[in-house]
């Protein structure tokens, strides 16, 4: 029983980072209409920046904020210099983002090196409750993710900005005629999604070492989460992340462990076949105009 409960606890923390990157993708892909395959590299850059700042003596939680801002600025630059020119041709943007991901990987190798980077656990505590080990930093990651989810959810569903954004996704031309600065909103969403990737990278390196290639692995899960939940749907990304986290945790614990990745991707395929709009429904994603 202890082992089973431990697996459920593990699943929750597995889900957290995935949810964070999933939200970033679901906003950029589902609301801004940009397929950014370099989003995983944005996360990696956030992790590397955190590693660098913590190594220079900065407190982890301060470094986390700086990493978010840095990657947010990177997102701003990428959107203004690259993706804004592909808004009407999403496939061009997609291919461009693949190139950007390779460039970012090798830029990081050039600046630092190819080896994995890690930091000392910022908290370093393990709580044992009823035979179940709860790693304090993982609990903090879950808590930070929950706060970000809440802020994002209310920002999208309740604020004026969120309503205007959803209106521009439904009908861009009408939204523009109503005076909504759609292009500026797209930029804003891209920056916010990138900022979440930066924070996700910082949280990730507090749990696991990262390499310049970490992003290319996690991006698949990020897209899976956003599609399972429903593109552009923050609640959907949370549900998608939890589904994948539970499948990962329980299949690793009780199934064939070497197939762990396959289980979660099979679940994704099944959901997309049975509910193409995702579990909670969402936008249809980017479309060429």
């Amino acid at each position, binding site marked *: 029983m202890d*082992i089973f409960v*431990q*697996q459920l606890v*593990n*699943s929750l*923390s*597995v889900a957290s980072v995935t949810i964070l990157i999933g939200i970033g993708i679901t906003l950029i892909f589902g609301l801004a209409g940009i397929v950014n395959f370099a989003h995983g590299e944005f996360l990696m850059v956030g992790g590397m920046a955190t590693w660098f700042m913590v190594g220079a003596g900065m407190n982890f939680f301060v470094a986390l904020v700086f990493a978010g801002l840095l990657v947010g600025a990177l997102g701003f630059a990428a959107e203004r210099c690259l993706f804004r020119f592909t808004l009407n041709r999403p496939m061009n943007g997609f291919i461009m983002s693949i190139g950007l991901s390779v460039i970012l*990987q*090798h830029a990081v*190798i050039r600046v630092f*090196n*190819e*080896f*994995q980077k*890690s930091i*000392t*656990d910022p908290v370093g505590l*393990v709580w044992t409750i009823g035979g179940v*080990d709860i*790693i304090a930093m993982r609990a903090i990651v879950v808590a930070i993710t929950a706060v970000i989810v809440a802020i994002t959810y209310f920002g999208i569903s309740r604020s004026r900005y969120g309503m205007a954004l959803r209106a521009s996704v439904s009908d861009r031309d009408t939204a523009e005629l109503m005076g909504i600065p759609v292009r500026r909103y797209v930029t804003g969403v891209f920056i916010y999604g990138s900022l979440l990737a930066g924070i996700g990278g910082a949280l*990730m390196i507090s*749990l*696991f*070492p*990262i*390499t310049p*290639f*970490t992003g290319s*692995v*996690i991006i698949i899960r990020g897209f899976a989460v956003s599609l399972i939940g429903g593109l552009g749907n923050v609640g959907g990304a949370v549900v998608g992340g939890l589904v994948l986290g539970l499948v*990962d*945790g*329980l*299949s*690793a*614990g*009780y199934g064939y*462990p*070497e*197939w*762990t*990745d*396959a289980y979660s991707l099979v679940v994704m395929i099944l959901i997309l076949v049975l509910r193409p709009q995702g579990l909670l429904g969402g936008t249809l994603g980017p479309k060429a105009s």
Partner: protein
Amino acid sequence: MRQLGLGLTMAAAGLVMALQTARADEELPIGVIAAQSGSFVSAGNTIVGAANLAAQQINDAGGIKVGDKTYKIKLYIRDNRTDVNVSIAAARELVNDIGVKAIWGTETHDFSVSMAKITGPAKVLQFSGNSSLGAVLDDKAIADDGWLHYTFQSEPQEWQRSGSTAKGVLSLLTPQLKSPPKHSVVFVGNDATGQYLSSHYVKALEAEGQKVDLVQYPPDTTDFSPLLTRIKGMKPDIVHFWYNGDSTLTAFPQALKLGVAPSYFLFGVDPGIYQERSLKADVPVTLSCVPVCWGSSPFPEVKQYFDKYFGLGAAKGPQSSVSLLYYDYFFWYAKALEKVGTIDDPDAVVAELLKSDYKGVVSPVPLVFNKHHQVTFATEVCMVEPNTSDQFKCAVEQPPGAPPPGDNGG
């Protein structure tokens, strides 16, 4: 007029001498194919680092004297981008367009085998540090007309490395545990190399009296906690993190936090990295290097080697010691060329390599190739004192004389 004639004669003599000097320093083209980008870059860069150091040392020492000519090594380094197709294309270019006499690389079994299908027919020697080549280097393949006649495996056979590692780990850990360890879990990435290597290591542990469970994880896993929780439920005496040093460095701290086992073994994690990362465990931990450690060098020659290797700018990583699977063979190859007296008779060079030995850095015992073109040398295994990051006790374990029961050696 006589002075003019004398001057012309002297000028002509000078020109002839200059030409002779230029001819004396001829170029020996050698190819290096390694991952300088992509996911195998940390292993690939060690091949390039070893090649650069060896070529520089040989050239600085005057080059290779073959017959009446002196050759300086000219390296042609190609990035395989961790892609088998790029490796094949690079091998074709080096063999067909550049005309290299030998190729060093590459870091993975599949890529090396693919390259051998190009180097073999062209009679270009290939030195590859993949123990998994043992699966294909048989009597037929290495025969005079065999497809691997010109390929040499510069890493010991896997049953040898597994045998010496298992023996070293158990002999270091047993005195540290309350009772002799009986149950081991081998934790390994589920890729072609992981499957091959672990198949031998499981047999080696069984030969040492261990009950062994094998748990495989998908490559690129970062969160190992569900799998480690599963292993904790098996109540092992030792968890052996096998094969991939980078994955091990990710999984091991998670295992410590979850209290998975009373002792651990980390394959391919150098004591230098353990110290650099400030890793610390309250239980005994053993480490092994491929093949000897830079963080705790067993011999003065090895320490000097790593000082020079890192002095050339190579990064200190968990796989830096892999460079020693490539370095010595440049000198051995040069020695064989000098003995044969020509760089254009690869069959004679192969024969010379097979009948000669070479006292390199990697081993205090001279290296020799067996009839299947494979070398043998020992493995270094270290134990970290509990609650320290820098207190190591190391031993160099010799390989067993024969494969364990159930292991056909290939």
